[in-house]
């Protein structure tokens, strides 16, 4: 893997993200529904609407607006929110942490959990554990995130009182430092489980399939023949290669997690950018919408890049030119 390759891929990020922004911009502006009406609300008169329109530059032709926007982005300015009057960058960065915490933890949990379940299933295919894991995976995969979220709140939060019902922190809490971290962690459990549910299923199935495949290979047979204990065979010899499909999919899984986070943030009142995006869309607050697109596109593209680079470590046979 050459440095030139890495640089080349990094450069590729720019047109990808730019393309997403332009398409996003056009889609929002071509969608029905005048942003001025959303911004100015009811009860205004014609003069007020003209005033709002001019103030936000919405009376310019679309091409001009697009060019202005692109120029600003290149200069590092993601625009100013129509509804909040603040720089979009500030708003997005404020909320980004919560979403990163949620999706990051969900990614780790789903990967670790999926690997563990996949190992469990593959250790004895079509045995009792395998069937249990497979059944559970299919169930989690098929169940809609919204429903899983609501049921988990009703049963695990309201029903048993083990977990809080919503939010990232306890209302009016003054905790700081470790107490604050513990409070957040307590609130994090249910949203992460719900968000990770589908992904755990996916990873478990992938791992299981890869492992079973791998375990049929010659070098594994050699290891058995040499008397290696099952644990070593599974973990040291088979798992590393079986990890390949799991790692490859991480890029796409980050995308799925971001999509799922919109629903989870709504159900659990988690203050992240998913919820920000939905609110901004409803209010036709274009700068925020595009700002969120930018951040999400950038993250997913970056995740894919990292995945590709990690891939080569796992499988030395793969090289990039």
């Amino acid at each position, binding site marked *: 893997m050459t440095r030139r390759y890495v640089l080349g891929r990094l450069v590729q990020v720019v047109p990808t993200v730019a393309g997403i922004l332009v398409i996003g911009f056009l889609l929002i502006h071509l969608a029905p*529904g*005048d*942003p001025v*009406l*959303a911004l*100015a*609300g*009811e*009860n*205004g*008169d014609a003069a007020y609407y003209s005033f709002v329109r001019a103030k936000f530059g919405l009376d310019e032709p679309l091409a001009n607006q697009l060019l202005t926007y692109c120029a600003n982005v290149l200069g590092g300015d993601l625009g100013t*929110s129509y*509804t*909040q*009057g*603040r720089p979009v960058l500030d*708003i997005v960065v*404020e*909320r980004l942490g919560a979403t990163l915490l949620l999706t990051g933890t969900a990614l780790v949990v789903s990967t670790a959990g999926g690997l563990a379940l996949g190992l469990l299933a593959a250790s004895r*295919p079509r045995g009792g554990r395998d*069937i249990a894991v*497979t*059944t559970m995976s*299919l*169930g989690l995969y*098929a169940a*809609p995130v919204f429903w899983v979220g*609501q*049921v988990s709140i*009703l049963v695990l939060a*309201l*029903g048993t009182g083990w977990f*809080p*019902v*919503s*939010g990232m922190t306890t*209302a*009016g809490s003054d905790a700081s430092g470790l107490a604050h971290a513990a409070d957040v962690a307590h609130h994090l459990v249910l949203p992460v489980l719900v968000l990770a549910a589908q992904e755990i299923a*996916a990873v478990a199935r992938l791992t299981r*399939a*890869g*492992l*079973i*495949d791998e*375990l*049929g290979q010659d070098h594994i047979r050699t290891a058995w023949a040499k008397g290696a204990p099952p644990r070593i065979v599974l973990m040291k010899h088979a798992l590393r290669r079986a990890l390949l*499909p799991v790692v*490859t*999919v991480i*890029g*796409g899984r980050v*995308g799925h997690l971001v999509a799922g986070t919109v629903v989870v943030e709504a*159900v659990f*009142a988690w*203050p992240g950018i998913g919820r*920000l995006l*939905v*609110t901004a869309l409803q209010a036709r607050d274009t700068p925020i919408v595009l700002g969120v697109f930018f951040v999400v596109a950038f993250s997913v*593209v970056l995740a*894919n890049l990292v995945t590709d680079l990690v891939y080569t470590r796992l499988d030395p046979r793969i090289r990039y030119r």
Partner: protein
Amino acid sequence: MRAPVMFRFGVEGQCLFRPPLILTTFPGDSGPGHRFANGGHDMGRLRWTAVGVVAVFLAAGCGSDDDPEVAGPTTDAGVTTTTGDDAPVTEGGTVVVAISSDPGQLNPAITTSGGVHTASELFFNGLVDLDENLEPVPELAESWEVEEDGALYRFNLREGVEWHDGTPFTAADVKYSFDEVLVQLHSRTKASVGAAIESIEVVDDLTVEFRFGQPYAPLLQQLNVTEAPIIPRHIYEGTDPMTNPANLEPVGTGPFRFVSYTTGSEIRMEKNPDYFEDGLPLLDEVVMRVIPEEGSRVVALEAGEVDWLFETPGPDLERLRSSGDFEFLETPVNPGGANCIMTVSFNLDRPIFGDVRLRRAIGHALDREQFLERVLFGQGAVAEAPISSGIPFAHGDVELPEFDVEEAERLLDEAGWVRDGDAIRTAQGVEGVEDGTSLAFDFLHFPTFTAYAELLRAQLREVGAEVTLEPLEPPVFAETVFTNRDFDTNIISYCNATDPEIGVRRMFTTANISTVPFSNAAAYRNPAVDALFDEAQATVETDDRAPIYQEIQEIVAEELPYLWIVETIAVRAYDADCTGFGPSGHFAETASCEQ
């Protein structure tokens, strides 16, 4: 190794490939790993197991709607004691309030957004407040004089009021708030006071005069914290009010002071110890939590995580009532406005609606009691006049079409819409409509009003009218109805507010047929009505205004440009350990909770 090869193709670009979790192929099961393989039988058994699981989940998923009552008893993990409203008044404590959206900023003077106002009105005051009978009571203004028949209003301001940062409040703040902010940026004030005002003069530190070109009757109804909050001149003057950082750290004169605002999550405020109302507020702290999902808000109340909800969904009302842990407050103040009536509009510019008999027939075909029961779960009232009963002096004594299917059919026959058995009616000799045209029209509505739409369609089908429903998101609805005028009928929640000048006039006057949303949707043109509204606006005494509004309502009840269905209310729900809440605005000013 088949699986990795498939994925390698996805490596270069975005990996949108979803791993195959379908029941057909399990790579590796029947592959070279024959050590464990056993072909057909086991796959079959597994497949049926999986099908069974999927079926169970589908059934469960389809059976539930927004609020699944599938699992979970409705136990309250929180409060178990109830005390009722004779609880002794205690000082101190914190109330946690659930709000449905993140306000984004906390300045209520630059916007009419319900989200911002709910979150920020506790920080500010208006000049004059309104009591339950909509009578003006002093707030920042201690007393006032109305002179020149309503062309001049003089307000004598309360002495010793301070902004939260200690600066004294003066008349200059009032002038600044109106001239530079409210009249420019607060759409309702701009359209009403802003259009009529001539000048605002600071007579001295505690006296301010409002001068109008002609007598302006409704001023005192438009000066509370919702319609005209006063903001600090010393912080905002010379800056752009829409981007001033104080919008995120508000400084006001109100009962509560700003503590912190975590965007998307919560707003914290503490008691203002120097508040000009002696002994108020009683609470130490109010925390507003952003919980976007309605179901989650109700669950949070039941779990004890929040103490107050601004609205309770109809289906949950029974359950919450019977638990005995909550008290309720009914009020006509919604997030969108006060005294709202669900109103069906006819597009009078379309020939099909030219005949009043058709409009009247449709009115007779609607069973409005059913709307109240089915859609509102009994919360609210059938509309009895074009102006809401929440404005007592203007609420008319008129006869709106009663539910009478026979009368509806008779009028339709008379108007030339003939019916063959149970079929949809067709035109026969209807002016402006070709013979043989079906009695079919569209009905536009917000997605949140789908229940009304479906009930209306069912009721009108009974009398042979075919209604096509068109749900549209609010910005699209506004554009289609008001900018493009591309609709036959629609339903709108027209909020009358606290005076007919604010919320009713815009529905009926010719001048208000415009592209501005929620103006005169029906395009009703009647010079007599226009003249009456002008007369009412210039008459200051409510006793003199009442007969004018009565006459207006008699005319429109005859001509039926609209059909008034139901008056809506909101039901606030709160922890039974608390008491003393108001309906809105400064709702927590007099509240207290047992600890």
